[in-house]
């Protein structure tokens, strides 16, 4: 009996619920923490980012219009599928990040728990961040949080799964849609996450995942007039100021985070709050 041949995989992007090749036709080799070749990933271009934003915009109305309860159910289902792929994630996190199996296992478990944690928030955000305002007049005044729109997320460069989940889940839990640029050198767990999303109930376009060079694609997303918010978590330090300046040109919400954020710690609501607008409604009493 002969040994089986190993065929190196060449992965693709995840845009609008489909897995297209990069418009540019490029791909780049991905290595593990020791420098051994693992697979090829698609090297996304600015036009892939443009297509992803269009897909995210198209998905926004239905996703933000779904009931919070429904969004919660969809996200819980994602957590179930994540759980089903646990072994694959553990091996990918271990090779990508160069951590021992035991550590990788704990990172994957924390990532799944993190997803469930944010899924639980979907139908509680309005109660916690919204309010009934006391006003001096015969009116009811309510403030409710609303999703801001399409969010461009630069995923953390180091934490390939836990970090990724910690930046995507809060964006979509509140009804936003997103375009994610993955960790440049550790994209494999993100690619597997896109397969999880494609086989769960998340509508196509709600999460779009682009692998490639963050520094190449991020400026196009920062200046894109149809992107409403920008998460700078995985941005290279040298580029942060430029990205913020470009984002200001189209009045985006920008989430600035501390470098080397510890994703194993229990999060607070700050990432949820970052992508919300407050809508206040006045209503005459007694009508």
């Amino acid at each position: 009996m002969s040994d089986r041949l190993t065929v190196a995989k060449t992965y693709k992007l995840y845009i609008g619920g489909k897995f297209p090749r990069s418009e540019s036709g490029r791909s780049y080799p991905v290595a593990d923490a020791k420098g051994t070749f693992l697979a090829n990933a698609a090297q996304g271009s600015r036009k892939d980012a443009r297509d992803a934003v269009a897909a995210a915009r198209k998905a926004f109305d239905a996703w933000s219009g779904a009931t919070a309860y429904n969004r919660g159910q969809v996200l819980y289902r994602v957590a179930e599928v994540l759980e089903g792929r646990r072994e694959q994630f553990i091996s990918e996190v271990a090779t990508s990040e160069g951590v021992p199996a035991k550590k990788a296992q704990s990172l994957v478990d924390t990532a799944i728990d993190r997803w469930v944690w944010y899924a639980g928030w979907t139908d509680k955000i309005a109660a916690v961040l919204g309010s009934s305002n006391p006003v001096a007049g015969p009116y009811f005044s309510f403030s409710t949080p609303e999703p801001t729109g399409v969010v461009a997320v630069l995923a953390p460069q180091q934490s390939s799964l836990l970090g990724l989940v910690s930046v995507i889940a809060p964006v979509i839990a509140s009804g936003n849609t997103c375009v994610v640029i993955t960790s440049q050198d550790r994209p494999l767990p993100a690619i597997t996450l896109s397969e999880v999303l494609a086989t769960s109930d998340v509508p196509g376009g709600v999460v779009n995942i682009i692998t490639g060079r963050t520094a190449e694609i991020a400026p196009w997303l920062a200046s894109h007039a149809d992107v409403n918010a920008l998460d700078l978590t995985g941005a290279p330090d040298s580029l942060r100021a430029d990205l913020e300046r470009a984002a200001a040109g189209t009045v985006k919400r920008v989430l600035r985070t501390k470098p080397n954020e510890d994703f194993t710690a229990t999060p607070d609501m700050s990432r949820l709050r970052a992508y919300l607008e407050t809508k206040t409604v006045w209503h005459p009493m007694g009508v």
Partner: protein
Amino acid sequence: MAAPTTPPSALADAVRDESSLRRFLHGLPGVDQVGVEQRAAGLGTRSIKKASKLHAIDLAISMVDLTTLEGADTAGKVRGLAAKAKRPDPERPDVPPVAAVCVYPDMVATAAKELQGTGINVASVATAFPSGRSTLDIKLADTRFAVREGASEVDMVIDRGAFLSGRYGQVFEEIVKVKEACGDAHLKVILETGELVTYDNVRRASWLALLAGGDFIKTSTGKVQPAATLPVTHVMLQAVRDWKAQTGELRGVKPAGGIRTTKDAIKYLVAVHEVAGPEWLDPHLFRFGASTLLNDLLMQRRTQLDGHYSGPDYVTVD
């Protein structure tokens, strides 16, 4: 059979009677389906960049027949559309106005009032649009009404039932009469290629409309799928090119329906240049029947000039 308003001498024989018309139309060379589709797809891959792209976008904007043909149209909507036709992008006065506004006959007066003195034409659909299923008298009355209200262009539909049953004489006669009813107004003849089934039929219908005196041949009403496609437009462009070669007259082509993106529009412009010739790259000889296309053209124009991607928040909602 009534003679066309301007009988081209070389083709006079074809319109002598119904049987010679049939002989002429069936004597036209057949369309090579695989060939025309391949050529259309091939020209569609041509890359237009930078200054050429910007020029193409401005040209496409000036060729748009900004259209609203909904049962829910109101005078307010037509006034809004007219305002947009005059200044498509209010923040950028250098954007050219569109070629025409296209509405139902009862909205013509409203549109004409708004567009008076702007050089933008008012086009009206007529002749029992979109099905064309009515008597000739009603179709002619519909046309006269539109022209009386101030339409300078009339988009008529042919009787596809008659065409497909081979009653070419009847279709010819109708176009000739409608053309008479139009007076000075330009006549665009809608072939509704989505219902004609074959490219051979599209070629025959194109020639029939040209022989009968149509100033433009238009692909579709926009109410039938498939609407305008590149290969069908190729066949029609070939017809106007051959018409020019035989008679010296210039006639126009208008694809309508389903052209929504700048990329699509530029593919059509490439086809116009390559199939008909650069002469046809002119709003007098080529039009786009569209509504959503204009917003995409404006967004692409901003993208080209601003150096970053634009979004729908920066163009008017209509």
